[in-house]
């Protein structure tokens, strides 16, 4: 079925208005040689049929298993009010709030979201959202290069490998140079930067879960006149010292942990926050408070001169559509949990991760590869390739042991804990892993 409201009569009348008799005439200005290809697509289905089909496909995925998978995306609990509110048609089916008088809902929600991200990161300003953590990182680095007018980038290997890959793609495009500093003992070693370096990137907790001490890097970067881009899981910021407190200039990360379903990796949202002085380098949309002609408070898109639709080839970024609804979900999640709830979610995750790490490291041949202190994820060195272990665990009803790329070492696997895990789950996974490895 399709979703057109036209009755046969409507089509006739409307065509007549145009002096036409057949819909084909609407395509009379196309070259005939390319007109009306035969598309080879499956036969149309009704809603009932397509949902039944998708249910079958969904059943081919194993989702009932308890999951300890991490890598920046984790199975958190989403309070029911979040999707219920986010799915309200006004939020779901609006677009970019170009007409502020009828878009105060989205605009105010963005303004509040910007504030929450600034609070979480300890920085001054945030924007309306970016695509995901990886793109946010790339935009953050490009921003730093624009500001410093330099083309060198140094990245810690502790940054999520997929984020580094995306960054590489973006940097290659603009001809920037990127150097990676390998982890040592699971942590980013001290480094020196010369004055070609415009951006220095590190992540804490890093990809294998260790909490970094960013101080030396930040000091060295600032010394060299570079800006620091800090990748942080927003949930960790409920407890950990903020990028702002450490002295970073830019914070970026992925918003999945804040109320967004995992959805096989997307959509989530990317956040970015910067110090005030970098404001005009920010990519994407910004919302400002203002007043209407009657003196009532309202919100508008601001500083659009940075954006593609005004600045075109000179825009700070090409980003247009961002991740509004998933960012809104993030804001709703934060509003429903509040600082206390968020801290509780994080605390449970931390405790469970430590319990889990201790429990699993006891298994013969298994070794904790992440130095303490770790947060909610950690890597284990397994006696066998992680892919095999992950598959064997899945067969036992556990999703865990995400393979860590070989650049970090042999047979490393990532584990994460969340507030959805309890002692029994930890015990269950321990037993399953022991079985798999025995």
């Amino acid at each position, binding site marked *: 079925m399709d979703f057109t409201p036209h009755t046969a009569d409507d089509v006739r009348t409307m065509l007549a208005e145009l002096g036409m008799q057949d819909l084909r005439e609407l395509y009379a200005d196309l070259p005939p040689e390319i007109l009306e290809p035969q598309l080879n697509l499956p036969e149309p289905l009704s809603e009932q049929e*397509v949902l039944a089909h998708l249910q079958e496909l969904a059943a081919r995925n194993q989702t009932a298993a308890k999951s300890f998978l991490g890598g920046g995306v984790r199975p958190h609990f989403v309070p029911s009010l979040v999707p219920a509110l986010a799915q*309200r048609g006004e939020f779901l089916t609006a*677009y970019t709030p170009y007409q502020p*008088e009828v878009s105060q809902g989205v605009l105010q929600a963005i303004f509040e979201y910007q504030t929450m991200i600034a609070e979480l990161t300890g920085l001054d300003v945030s924007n309306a959202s970016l695509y995901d953590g990886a793109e946010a990182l790339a935009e953050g680095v490009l921003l730093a290069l624009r500001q410093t007018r330099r083309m060198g980038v140094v990245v810690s290997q502790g940054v999520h490998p997929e984020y580094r890959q*995306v960054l590489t793609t973006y940097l290659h495009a603009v001809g920037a140079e990127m150097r990676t500093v390998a982890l040592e003992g699971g942590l980013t070693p001290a480094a020196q930067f010369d004055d070609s370096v415009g951006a220095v990137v590190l992540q804490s907790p890093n990809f294998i879960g260790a909490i970094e001490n960013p101080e030396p890097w930040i000091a060295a970067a600032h010394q060299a006149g570079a800006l620091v881009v800090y990748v942080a899981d927003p949930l960790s910021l409920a407890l950990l010292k903020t990028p702002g407190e450490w002295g970073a200039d830019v914070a970026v990360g992925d918003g999945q942990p804040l109320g967004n379903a995992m959805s096989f990796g997307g959509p989530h949202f990317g956040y970015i926050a910067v110090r005030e002085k970098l404001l005009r380098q920010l990519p994407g949309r910004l919302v400002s408070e203002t007043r209407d002609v009657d003196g009532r408070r309202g919100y508008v898109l601001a500083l659009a001169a940075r954006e593609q639709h005004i600045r075109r080839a000179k825009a700070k970024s090409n980003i247009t559509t*961002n991740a509004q609804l998933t960012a809104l979900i993030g804001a709703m999640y934060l509003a429903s949990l509040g600082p206390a709830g968020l801290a509780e979610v994080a605390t449970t995750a931390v*405790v469970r991760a430590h319990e889990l790490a201790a429990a699993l490291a006891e298994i013969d041949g298994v070794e904790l590869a992440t130095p303490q202190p770790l947060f909610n994820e950690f890597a284990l060195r397994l006696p066998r390739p992680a892919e095999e272990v992950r598959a064997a665990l899945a067969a036992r009803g556990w*999703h865990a042991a995400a393979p860590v790329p070989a650049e970090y070492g042999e047979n490393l696997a990532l584990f994460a804990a969340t507030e959805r895990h309890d002692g029994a789950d930890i015990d269950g996974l321990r037993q399953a892993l022991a079985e798999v490895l025995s």
Partner: protein
Amino acid sequence: MKRDFPTVFERSRSGRRGTRPPAPPKADLESLLGTANLRAAPPRLPELDELSVVRHYTNLSRRQVGVDTNFYPLGSCTMKYNPRAYEAAAALFGELHPYQDPNTAQGALQIIYELQQYLAEITGMDAVTLQPAAGAHGELTGMLLIRAYHESRGEGEQRRVVLVPDSAHGSNPATASMAGYQVQEVPSGPDGEVDLEALRAALGPHVAAIMLTNPNTLGLFERKILELIDAAHEQGVQLYYDGANLNAIMGWARPGDMGFDAVHLNLHKTFSTPHGGGGPGSGPVGAKAHLAPFLPVPTVKREGERYLLDYDRPQSIGRMRSFYGNFAVMVRAYAYIRMLGAEGLKKTSALAVLNANYLRKRLSWAGYPIPYDRLCKHEFVAQPPEGLKALDVAKALLDYGYHPPTIYFPLIVKEALMIEPTETESKETLDEYVRAMAEIAKRGLEDPEWIAHTPYETPVRRLDEVTANRHPVLRWRPEET
């Protein structure tokens, strides 16, 4: 009795609790995490009970319009109906982790794989990646494919320029810049189409690509497209198709058949996934065979009955996004294509075009000049009657219950009103809209004071954007209360 609508922070009270997670285990965080690693004070997030959260966002949504509430003919944005079934469909896959064993995610991989195939079929391309997160992200992906292609042929250094028509969407030149190119604008001719002669003149061995939308942002089909593409190809120039306007021609013509080398689509426009107030979207990219080796990793391939993530693509431009793209958006588009089938897609485009042409005709009679008044595709550009501003017409429309069209774009038309009704709006809606537009024209010309102060009935009225730009207030601060 209209008061300032409170922010979520102003509703907050210290110590108030909303949704509570399970009680956390006793923990000594200083020793678990290290005292030096703890933040000095908790983030000042709002402290609300659940009811306040629900009321806040429910009432915020009531200060917002969407396709679900109003006719929303925002040109270039394809604000069509978003079937609710797809929300249910996407939710079926919410608990899938991107790093779970691919053998336990075969249903999801199958959807990606098949959607890749469908989109290749619809666009006439050889291979598709679903990784890009939105249209502009797709553009960048596509331009990087082209760049990698030129580089692979040793022409990377030489081809440094991308041609973009002056009517192009802002993301096109912005993308070309991000892809490391210099942008050169090509003028439009008096017929609103790309000036073929000017374009020919601009071509040469220094040109890497042309980015084109077809139908273009005036809603006009570039009738000389085959010639144009031939001329470019002769010079080794690659053709990029901005598929944001594919809603006009699905099933009627394919960019691939026109000769385009790469194309992005906007699943959130043409394929009916919701716009979410500004995103997330999904911007798949299709490529002809010669560009296919450069597609980002991973793609999904099929081996017998199994679906695999293919990372082994040595010529790939690399990664554009973490994981596999906006999967939940893909599910919606997949469902849409499966429901419509080839015939439904074709009908959808034809009726989108019918609606646009009908509206064009009627609005022209209602006194709105149409600068390029010929058969259009899914959208068209009108102008307000002499003496009125596009902005004022837009604001007046708000009181009539309509979301205004896109205004002041494309840049080549003065006071542009860019109108895209989409195929999911009925003839009555279009007729009523024309009545409103006619009334606005009449009343606006008679009573300039009235129109200059519209809207009157919205939750807030015209807002002070000047101050917002001079002294932006980008976050709430307690001092402000």
